[in-house]
């Protein structure tokens, strides 16, 4: 059997052959050719050496970082819990809104409309406080970017601080957005939390005032950060 150049398969075919990415019939014909053609076999062998080598490199163990692992897993768990809470909260929101409107209507009818809603008083005598450490936009490719509020809540009081609702506002959105609910800070405890809301794909951090408001059992705690 002669092995003239015209009968050979192209090198790119052998590359695809190696990857098993050819139709069965063509594959079978090539396998047959291989038995009689040392030069094609040499090409395949060379490609194969490179491929097996890369596969072997991929098997080499990565350096282990136990502390990093612990931290990543903790962050992951927090992020997932937060997003689940947010989702559940949004589900409840509709129901709650309807109830609030209904209750408001009933109350207005009952008492007359002389009472305008007033902001609940700040926690004047409480030693609880909230600090907005920073605001930033993070991008994770697999879901819309989010605007994140990095917050420290400290409860210097002698009783637990129950946070009923967290609301963030920013110069981009006119509306305040509820982001999480049901959070408890024990006396003397300091809690670090990231609250976030999804934003549009091309959103940038705009200058202006970013606010976080915690509605607690005693009133509200507010912190602000001005981005220049």
């Amino acid at each position, binding site marked *: 059997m002669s092995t003239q150049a015209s009968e050979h398969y192209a090198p790119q075919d052998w590359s695809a052959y190696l990857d098993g*990415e050819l139709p069965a019939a063509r594959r079978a014909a090539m396998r047959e050719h291989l038995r009689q053609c040392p030069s094609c076999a*040499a090409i395949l062998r*060379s490609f194969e050496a490179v491929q097996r*080598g*890369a596969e072997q490199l991929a*098997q080499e163990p990565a350096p282990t970082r136990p502390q990093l692992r612990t931290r990543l897993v903790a962050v992951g*768990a927090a992020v997932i819990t937060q997003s689940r809470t947010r989702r559940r909260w949004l589900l409840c929101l509709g129901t709650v809104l309807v109830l609030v409107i209904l209750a408001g209507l009933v109350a207005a009818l009952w008492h007359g409309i002389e009472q305008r809603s007033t902001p609940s008083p700040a926690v004047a005598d409480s030693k609880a406080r909230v600090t907005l450490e920073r605001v930033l936009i993070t991008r*994770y490719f697999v879901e819309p970017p989010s605007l994140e509020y990095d917050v420290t809540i400290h409860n210097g009081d002698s009783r637990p601080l129950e946070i009923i609702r967290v609301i963030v506002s920013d110069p981009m959105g006119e509306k305040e957005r509820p982001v999480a609910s049901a959070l408890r800070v024990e006396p003397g405890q300091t809690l670090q939390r990231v609250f976030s809301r999804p934003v549009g794909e091309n959103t940038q951090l705009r200058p202006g005032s970013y606010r976080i408001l915690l509605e607690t059992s005693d009133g509200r705690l507010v912190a602000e950060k001005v981005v220049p």
Partner: protein
Amino acid sequence: MTELDVETLRRCRRGDPAALGVLYDCYRRPVYYLARRMVGEAEAEDVCQETFIAVFRAVVKFEGKSKLSTWVLAVATRVCLMHLRKRRRQEASAEPADTAETEPMTLLSPSHELLNKEFLKRLADAMDRLPENQRLAVSLRSFEEMSYEEIARAMNCRLEQVRAMLFRARCRLLKLLEGH
């Protein structure tokens, strides 16, 4: 690469730290390998971290339309490309063009001690010298489960391009290995 079992995946979606740890252990090696090849040792750990945070964030929405392993590698690919883009912006350096191979092919001599330590070391060095997209294609193809279709999806390109990139990458690798 092993796949995560359904029960562990379900626990991951609920944010169970132990299950997330299993996911991390399962894919740390392939993700690190890809990161190491694409951005180098100094930044590989950063890419790894970013990838896992992104994976943890999105695992709630993972619908199982693809294998988890290929999905994780697709996320890692995007994080790698982001890092490279950022680096290029900072250094204003041009990526060597992915030109078609016109020279005659180089083959490895049969006497080559294949797959020994020395060969693997030289192969790793050669891979680091490939153009970005060829390097990415070869690195992704290092995993058995990454078919042309899967690689095309991760790289956001056509299947034919994957075929061509892998061929050109292999030709270039052979040349680099021989020229040693």
